[in-house]
């Protein structure tokens, strides 16, 4: 009995922290989304579902949600395509180069989000180094307008999310028993066949983890879309902030945030469900 109490006690501080700084505020948000709006105060006394009706019913807000999810998918796919070869290499590189390569992969995270985005703004600006190089090489005759549009936002987000995709995949790949590659070759499988039938399936848990992580990060991105996209890229996070801070419509802002949350949970559940048959096969424990 005492030992069970003791284990519970050890977990208590963390649970308390989680409760106070996560569960409570989140609960507060959920509660707020059902409140009626009021002027001169965050919310009125009545309870209502009108906020959700507006969030889901109004085509404008639905468009923003779908656009956000779509951009999330785009960023995730691009990140995956870029990251998989990097992860493959990272999982195979010899110990000597391993740390160096690892540092390269993690490097986007070494700079804070504001500094990084200002860096991008400088690089792609009219007078910036990218335009200068392109002009000097003769590839263009006038500087390109590269800021404040979707492509630069996608590029910047992919750049910073690559480490989040590479590391889970590399870890999953490194856990694959090396003898399996020898076994596959000895049985007559070509390099491509071995990749398709052994490497790809066994790395899938890592891919799934990376995809979920990057998807969630992309649809909740705020600073990068605002700084590099200006106000032209209306994503959900910007919309929620506008409602909460701009228009001071806290209940509606909360409802929008919850809508995004639910959409995310649905998306992740779908992904997990689809991957379940293969995940069951590749689980490392019964």
């Amino acid at each position: 009995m005492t030992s069970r109490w003791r284990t519970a006690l050890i977990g208590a501080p963390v649970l308390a922290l989680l409760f106070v700084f996560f569960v409570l505020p989140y609960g507060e948000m959920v509660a707020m989304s059902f409140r009626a709006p009021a002027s001169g105060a965050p919310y009125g006394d009545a309870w209502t579902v009108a906020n959700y009706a507006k969030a889901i019913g109004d085509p404008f807000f639905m468009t923003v949600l779908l656009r956000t999810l779509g951009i999330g998918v785009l960023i995730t796919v691009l990140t995956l395509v870029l990251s998989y070869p990097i992860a493959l290499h990272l999982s195979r590189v010899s110990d000597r180069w391993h740390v160096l390569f690892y540092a390269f992969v993690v490097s986007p995270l070494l700079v804070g989000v504001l500094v990084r985005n200002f860096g991008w703004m400088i690089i792609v600006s009219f007078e910036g180094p990218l335009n200068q190089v392109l002009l000097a090489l003769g590839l263009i005759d006038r500087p390109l307008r590269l800021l404040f549009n979707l492509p630069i936002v996608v590029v910047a987000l992919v750049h910073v999310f690559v480490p989040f995709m590479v590391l889970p995949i590399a870890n999953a790949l490194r856990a694959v028993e090396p003898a399996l590659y020898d076994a596959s070759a000895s049985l007559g499988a070509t390099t491509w066949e071995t990749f398709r039938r052994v490497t790809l399936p066994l790395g899938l848990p890592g891919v799934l983890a990376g995809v979920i992580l990057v998807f969630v990060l992309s649809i909740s991105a705020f600073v990068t879309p605002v700084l590099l996209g200006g106000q032209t890229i209306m994503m959900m996070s910007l919309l929620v902030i506008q409602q909460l801070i701009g228009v001071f419509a806290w209940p509606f802002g909360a409802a929008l945030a919850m809508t995004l949350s639910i959409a995310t949970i649905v998306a992740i559940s779908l992904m997990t469900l689809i991957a379940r048959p293969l995940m069951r096969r590749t689980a490392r424990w019964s």
Partner: protein
Amino acid sequence: MAHLDIAGLRKSHGPVQVIAGVDLAVGSGEFFTLLGPSGCGKTTTLRCVAGFIAPDAGDIRVGGTSVLAVPPERRDFGVVFQNYALFPHLTVAENVGYGLQARRVTGEEARQRVGEALAMVQLFGLKDRLPRELSGGQQQRVALARAIVIKPRLLLLDEPLANLDAKLRHELRWLIRDVQRAQGITAIYVTHDHAEAMALSDRIAVMRHGQIAQVGTPREIYQRPSETYVASFTGETNTLAARVLGEVEPGRYRVAVAGGELIAPGPPGLATGTERRLLARPENLSLSASGTGGISVRLDALVYVGAGLRCEVTTACREKLVLQVPVQRPFAPGDTLTLTIDPDHAWLMAAEPTGEAA
């Protein structure tokens, strides 16, 4: 022409010569074992044959044609690994059928061949299980089935029983041999377990430091080892200093040993006066109360080992020997006894290892 020919194989790993000149010829359908301790180069040799490692020098020929330029996926060899190397995300049947799928054998033919292979290793009922649901012995059977179902030209086994407990090792040993014989596949087996090697092999190559010390049938290796290293690796060994006094018949010599003389067999061409080591395996020695003939020894220790009494004795020349006697013998430590060597089963070995010293 041998089925598998290895000539002048060399491989270095940095400054270490892992394989320092290996020559072998294995006949078709033969069960050939590479026997030696860790680090002797036996696994590296096998991996060169499989194509996982490229040797620095030498040639490997199968059926007369060199396979050095052929990548492992086209050599058509079946490999059984020490830690099974089963694909964890595939069922037993899918594992066994992996090589067939790579050869574009599908449908009914594939199903049938997989079924036959599984029946051969007595695992048919488990064909839809995943590897992690199987015991070690079952996993190794799957690995064996997977290697033979493709009807390979060679079967390469890298210490396949090393990860299993003793009882399983005995059971699976016979299965491997039976399957190999039934299919008639030439097999190269790597192990450090001499009992396993002797029980299974048609011929054994004892390796040390990247070279072959001796090649022969189990009987030849055990009874006529070329040097002390081979003798002690294949079983309990007693050696006594012996000096050749003369050749009595071709291959039989009169030798002076432990203060007496005997007539013992040895390799041809030993000159009078040569110093050799007389090999006397414990089972070819007997001990009796002091009498005529034989060698006078003192009994140092007596240990009850169930099947008998294990005796350690010392000769007058301070050489030690070990043998086993029936439990009823009324001996006690300190006794002076007579040791008799069965001369027909003794053997005159080289005084030092031929080649570089250990």
